[in-house]
């Protein structure tokens, strides 16, 4: 039984098994909303994207997207790190575990690292890690690594839009997800 079907059918017990009580409750609640209120479209599931951005390039790129008022979906939440090289792959696992539907690691373009070489390690580490994730069954569109410079505000906005769309198409993530009620 698919997750959506489980939620829509308010089969709470079954849904809980897959989603954890909190998530199941939220979805069940949302599913029940429109019928009761006769309101327009139900408030659908919204993807949650966690983006680790290096302070010097990608975070600055996000700031530039802001100052240039370049819109992108509000599904993205940025975590600031000094360098993409600071990002431990385990952070990504934790993010999926905690409920992220998509994760992005963004850093300076290779060659432009504020600390000269940090992103070369990022590149190696996540080239491998992405293969590992896909190997154990995480859909390819869920984890991304991108190079976004401090002057690439438009690219930041565009990448966020693309990733959100892609993850939305994939639906809620359940791989690696902690099924317990996270409080």
């Amino acid at each position, binding site marked *: 039984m698919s997750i959506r079907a489980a939620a829509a059918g308010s089969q709470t017990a079954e849904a809980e098994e897959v989603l954890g009580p909190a998530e199941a409750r939220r979805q069940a609640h949302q599913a029940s909303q429109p019928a009761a209120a006769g309101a327009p479209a139900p408030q659908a599931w919204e993807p949650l994207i966690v983006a680790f951005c290096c302070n010097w390039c990608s975070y600055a790129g996000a700031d530039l997207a802001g100052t240039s008022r370049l819109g992108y979906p509000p599904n993205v939440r940025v975590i600031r790190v000094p360098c993409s090289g600071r990002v431990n792959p385990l952070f990504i696992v934790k993010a999926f575990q905690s409920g992220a539907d998509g994760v992005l690691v963004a850093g300076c373009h290779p060659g432009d690292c504020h600390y000269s070489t940090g992103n070369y390690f990022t590149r190696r580490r996540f080239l491998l890690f992405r293969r590992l994730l896909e190997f*154990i069954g*995480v859909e390819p569109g869920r984890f991304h*690594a991108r190079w976004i410079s401090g002057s690439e505000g438009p690219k930041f906005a565009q990448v966020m839009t693309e990733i959100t769309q892609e993850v939305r198409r994939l639906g809620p993530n359940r791989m*690696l997800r902690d099924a317990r009620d996270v409080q």
Partner: protein
Amino acid sequence: MTVNAVTEKLRQTARDLLQSGQVGVVIGFEDGRFPGQPRPAFIRRAEDADRLVWNAFCGANLAKYVLDYRVGDGKIAVVAKGCDGAALARIIGDQQFPRQRLVVLAVGCPGMLDAGRVADAAGLPDGAWDAALAQVAAAAEPGADGFELNGKPVSRSAGLRPQCVRCRQPNVPAALEPDVWLSEPAPERHPSPDQLYGDVAALEAMSVEERGRFWEEAFSRCLRCFACRNVCPVCDCRECVLDDAQTRWLGKAVNLAENQFFHLTRAMHVAGRCVGCGQCEEACPVGLPLTVLYRKLSHDLEELFGPVEMPAPQEGKAAAGAAEGAAAGLEKAEWALTRFRLNDPDEFD
């Protein structure tokens, strides 16, 4: 009972080393409770040297035991097949044990047998293993390509442990410069790509959903006994990140998500460092196909960034006794994830 030549030489060498006080302990194998299942032995007295045995079932990796002797400065001798040697080199490169404190007793390894597989191949009934296997065990190298058991010809390959089918390193790495050769070096081995990665490729060929189901099914069976980590010779940290109670990377609950966290962590930490000794799978009580994961990563690392270099330990024993205390002067381990090349492949734009 006849004693094979390697065992003979091993006992003699161990006796000499212990008697002369060159080493405080010799790590090798002795007969276990069941034939075909010898167990690690830690021989401290010359008169116990005759307990040592060498036969075709001595598959366990002994390298990890040297870590128990980290504290102290006496020397220890270790019997080393190819995979023990590779693991020792890794441990030395990781600066967890100085080469000068080791006496490496190298044995060429034609591949180790698995008692169960041999029994199956010979059609031995469940209860009747022992005597028959004892006979196989006695010889270091029972028949080059096969032997007779239970009146049946058993081919060697039918009894090999799966990790030995995949073996590419039957001898200790040259850089380890073994102190003693207990046997002739074994001939090179060239497993086919299918033997090496057939199971990896099969999984890769599945859809991502199928793979997800496969691994979820596997990981949900994990008991979190940590046996895989505990036997792994390249898990040579003093403290394991998985035990870090302060940061609590790994949650306490035994559930699928935490189990996945555990195994992904381990996979990333042995990626490109794994020596393929297969101890993890042997130790796993629920039979998780762990090396599939590690081989997948080693394969991808090699494909992406070129061959993973073995750590080159310090130049022979020339420096023996020179560096005291900390493992000063030891060569550093090469790890693909702490190196880079400017022109590494880039898929991230």
